[in-house]
């Protein structure tokens, strides 16, 4: 068989990098799932053994409005990368660069709001186990948004310089699916940490 004519620059799901980044996402999702499982484990242990309530009595729950706004802003980031892919496919790499910049600015706003939100928390990460979860998982996601911004800045720069085109767009695609993960990882964390303690069971 002769493969001389086969594609070298296919930008679809065949490329090993696509599968590799999927592997990374599966690992990270497993990490979050195990964190959340640990959260429920401690909840059950504390309530069933009568040690303390969950969260411990007197814990002022974290405010929910700012994270809700952030969820919406993150959706914009996901959308902008999706639409960016379409632009690259039309060889509009400059336009993509501007959109990537917009994505970074909005994501920067997410970080700013999250910083304010963390300053508003009325507990320290050592106050109780619930507080540890809120701080660590919110911070974990903060780092991911930061990573997304840094990666997208680089991608945007190369796009501005004309590196990407309708065939060579693997970097854009990988950045995009990583953004999808960052966007999708937030609602479960938000729901479990910020809302489940408010529900009357």
């Amino acid at each position, binding site marked *: 068989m002769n493969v001389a004519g086969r594609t*070298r620059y296919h930008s679809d799901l065949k490329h090993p990098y696509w599968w590799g980044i999927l592997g990374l996402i599966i690992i990270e999702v497993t990490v979050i799932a195990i964190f959340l499982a640990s959260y429920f484990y401690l909840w059950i242990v504390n309530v069933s053994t009568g040690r303390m309530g969950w969260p411990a009595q007197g814990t002022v729950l974290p405010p929910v409005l700012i994270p809700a706004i952030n969820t919406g802003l993150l959706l914009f980031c996901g959308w902008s990368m999706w639409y960016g892919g379409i632009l690259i496919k039309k060889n509009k790499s400059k336009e993509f660069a501007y959109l990537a910049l917009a994505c970074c600015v909005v994501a920067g706003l997410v970080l700013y709001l999250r910083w304010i939100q963390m300053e508003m928390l009325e507990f320290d990460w050592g106050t109780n186990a619930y507080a540890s979860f809120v701080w660590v998982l919110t911070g974990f996601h903060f780092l991911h948004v930061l990573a997304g911004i840094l990666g997208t800045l680089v991608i945007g720069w190369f796009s501005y310089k004309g590196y990407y085109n309708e065939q060579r767009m693997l970097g854009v695609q990988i950045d995009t699916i990583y953004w999808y993960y960052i966007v999708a990882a937030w609602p479960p964390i938000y729901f479990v940490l910020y809302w489940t303690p408010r529900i009357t069971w």
Partner: protein
Amino acid sequence: MELNEKMQKLDQAWANPPGFIGWLRIVNQTNIGVRYIYTSLIFFFMSGVLGLMMRVQLASAETNVLGPEVFNQIFTVHGTAMMFLFAIPMVEGLGAYIVPLMIGTRDLSFPRLSSFSYFVFLIGGITLFGSLFMNVAPNAGWFDYVPLALKEWSPGKNIDVYATVITFIEISALAAAVELIVTILKQRAPGMTMARMPVFVWSILVMAFMIVFAMPGVIVGSVMLALDRIIGTVFFEASLGGDSLLWQHLFWWFGHPEVYIAFLPAAGVVSTIIPVFCKRPLYGYTAVVMSMVATGIISFGLWVHHMFTTGIPDQASAFFSVASAMIAIPSGIQIYCWIATILTGRPRFNTALLWCMGFVIVFVMGGLSGIMVASLPFDKQTHDTYFVVAHFHYVLIGGVVFPVFGGIYYWWPKFTGKLLNEKLGKINFWLVVIGFNIAFFPMHILGLQGMPRRIYTYIEEMNWGAMNMLSSLGAYLLGVGFFVFIINVIWTIKKGEVASNNPWDADTLEWLADSPPKNYKFVEIPRVKSLNPLWDDEMPVDATTGMRVDRREVLITEILSSKVQAVVILPTNSIWPFVLALATAVAFIGSIFSPWWFVVSIGLVFISITGWFWPHRPWDSGRDV
């Protein structure tokens, strides 16, 4: 193009850079693979020496050669290093070396990632052993239970080393796992469908999937522990809503599959070697593969059997007790298939096969004591005694070390181009088997007599002295046995017989490549038509043509049917994986001293990753022309 000219060009495109800096830049899979194998062997011998030191201390009652603190550090590093620095890197290294050759491709999918994960492993290993020399090594056992491991009870740096280094090394294991999965799924030679995949490749595939789902457990656990200790979160602090059993759940969620993560590839090695030396295909290929997959799944359902004595509910214990006994079924199926292969074949008793037969016998003994401790009432009697120590050494030395050495004897000619000496190999094998049984069988009896694990000494009146002395003598014999291996390696380097491409007349594709393989492995990618291609097919059949020889190209095929999809251009040598490993090390090893190092490393990691992916000018068109 003439064959010679083609080979010359391929040599150029796949060349390794010279010099020390060049050594840091090499990304070729066979180079990284042997580095993994040699490095983990060195850690194996170092951990083995720690084991011998423990046996010196325990040989007779009330000795004080090491003292309690040093003893604690030594047994902790012995266990931690054997699991994290020998078992996992060794099987992943074998996978990284053998798998691409076996499936007929030229390199792993992400060559730079292999280099990165090797350096992370190396730095992590050096840090762990370095901490031992600085007297700050972890000292709370390889499973590092809280609350003992919390700041309040272990105020030194010892446990910080554990929590950060373990997380760090896991990154390496996870990176290698993803890479192995993608390589196996996407780069098999045309015609090698799932049903024609060698058993060893299956075992590595199952292992890699297990790593992906198991390791996050210990990562979450060790991150929580590090945060509890370093910045003062309270995940494990029972008085503030945390819980110490949470650590045990997280650790064993990983820790139990871990046993099979090490065992399955070892079983894959056995399933590779036995057919070759019996001159017949493996009996029950499908059954063996299904057993491996079943083992992989069931192994996630038995972690609580390490926790039977922690006061968990009876019903939970009953469930995990049954699941623990159940995993004997797929292991049993594989053992019967191996026995059937040996009985219906014409065995040549080379050293490699001897290790496999030793494995079958010793592993069955370990399995039997495993069924015993799987049952709740028995476990409650023997938990935390030397019976358990005996059990897991039978399973891990018998089930992992023996096959791994079998594999090393078997593939050594491929690694180096020379055959290890058979006579020395047999001495090596018999000394190890005899020494092993003398060292570890008495531990069953000591355990039943009530000798607890992890004690640094015991009093004369317990009457454990004779058995312990016997065990220590066996351990020294075991040590001598492994020393013969080192002699064999040196002898082979000096006077070893030069190996042909296929010295064992084996059936899998790695024996089609040169010994040792060229950097590009295959001039043309062969087409596979059966499960035992080198026995059944004329090689190479309908090889693939049209891959460019002036750059690193590999063939991409469909996951199930292995039909050709595309060609991918692989990245070349780079210093950045090494730099990234250093940058990551700043985060983890720095956090032992201050959490701010983590923040510093974010910038360093960003620079390294950007450098890693920086496209070099002149850019090509980025299009198929």
